[in-house]
């Protein structure tokens, strides 16, 4: 089964990013393919490398980055949602004249079409949100 996962909420505030992560891991363990994880709304906050959770808490962002690297997963932050919320990669910094970037490893910023395409290409779309 080929899956696209949509994450609508940021880390820590809502459990949805945790649920999506454990669901993704379980799907991979069962041999399913994750075609894409698309982060939308406040979900784009899952992709900032500047988060510093306390030592005794999970690191939601780093956990995503590791999952992406281990399993070569395409993790996309919606560009419009990311711009609104200040999640910036090199390209966005240059285009919009920002003096810093904060995107975590394993993520990329792209358009909403990536979500639609995920729906076209995958057998299932599973949405996690508020």
């Amino acid at each position: 089964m080929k899956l696209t996962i949509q994450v609508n909420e940021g880390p820590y505030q809502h459990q949805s990013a945790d649920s999506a992560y454990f669901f993704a891991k379980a799907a991979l363990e069962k041999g399913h393919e994750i075609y894409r994880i698309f982060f939308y709304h406040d979900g784009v906050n899952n992709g900032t490398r500047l988060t510093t959770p306390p030592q005794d808490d999970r690191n939601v962002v780093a956990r995503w980055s590791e999952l992406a690297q281990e399993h070569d997963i395409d993790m996309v932050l919606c560009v419009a949602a990311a711009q609104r919320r200040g999640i910036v990669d090199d390209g966005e910094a240059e285009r919009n004249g920002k003096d810093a970037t904060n995107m975590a490893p394993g993520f990329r910023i792209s358009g909403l079409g990536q979500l639609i395409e995920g729906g076209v290409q995958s057998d299932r779309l599973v949405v996690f949100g508020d």
Partner: protein
Amino acid sequence: MAEETKKFMYINRKAPYGTIYAWEALEVVLIGAAFEQDVSVTFMDDGVYQLVKGQDTSGIGMKNFSPTYAALGDFEITKIYVEKESLEERGLTLDDLQHLVWEDEDEDWAEKDSIRLVNRAELGDVLADQDVLFNF
């Protein structure tokens, strides 16, 4: 793309302005229109408030995106389902909502209603018939 067309349903269940979900959902619908899938949109629960006429956001400093719904027909989004129970619970009728239309190319561009008023059971049938359900 030689792919088969899928039935895409965008489900709106949240009121506008209090949270951004309604506006960002509309952005997905507009972008999705370019993908030539078989698209429908549902407004139910508090989502019916998105279509209410006469929205004026000048006092809250936010963009009034409600006029964009009237453009859905131009994007060939012609199947807009509004749940009857959701309207009734909120004391609304179709007259409280924007009149959304599309022009039928096959009938000399005759203007047709986009909104289909359905009850919960009928909406259940419509949802069951879809391939992909988008939620926000």
